[in-house]
């Protein structure tokens, strides 16, 4: 069965510091990977997906099939980046998301 692991429950950094939120997955096929974000008092929403190879709000994520990882990175954290971040995958068939446990990012001033 597929599994998504986010090893850090909480990540605290200072404003301007680099950020890396870790995500590892276990699946033998070729999944589609996503990062979803939930800001305080807001709905869960898509941040970015690996297939788009895009940068959103300064965040990027590279799929490393050898290490089965999809870490989320940003070179300079901002206070408004403080939120819960969830890594998720979709198998080849269907559109069903499997989420990791989430990492709370706190960016201190």
């Amino acid at each position, binding site marked *: 069965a597929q599994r998504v692991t986010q090893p850090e429950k909480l990540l605290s950094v200072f404003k301007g510091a680099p950020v890396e939120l870790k995500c590892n997955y276990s699946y033998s096929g070729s999944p*589609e990977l996503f990062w979803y974000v939930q800001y305080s008092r807001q709905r869960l929403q898509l941040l970015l997906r690996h297939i788009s190879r895009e940068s959103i709000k300064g965040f990027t994520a590279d799929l490393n099939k050898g290490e089965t990882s999809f870490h989320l990175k940003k070179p300079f954290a901002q206070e408004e980046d403080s939120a819960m971040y969830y890594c998720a995958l979709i198998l080849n068939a*269907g559109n*069903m*998301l*499997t989420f990791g446990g989430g990492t709370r990012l706190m960016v201190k001033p």
Partner: protein
Amino acid sequence: EAGVAQSPRYKIIEKRQSVAFWCNPISGHATLYWYQQILGQGPKLLIQFQNNGVVDDSQLPKDRFSAERLKGVDSTLKIQPAKLEDSAVYLCASSPLARTGPYEQFFGPGTRLTVL
């Protein structure tokens, strides 16, 4: 466009009581999902509908949970009878037709259920 709507936003019941949640997806979205998010965990898919048919309900505890989407639009999720471990946020999401994709899922605000 209007987002996914859910009601109620909060519900407190005693164990063994029944409860129902309602979801109205984004207009035109064929696929609807119900997730359960227990405190400190990521959302877990309970059931996926495509129009009014069930695509996957393998993680739905069918002895106490049921869900329907009779006209392919609104959906209800019911728990009968509730247990303490059902305390969670129940999220509804919708997306365009899932046959091709994957498509972004749009989430509602959730219903926070507390079972005492």
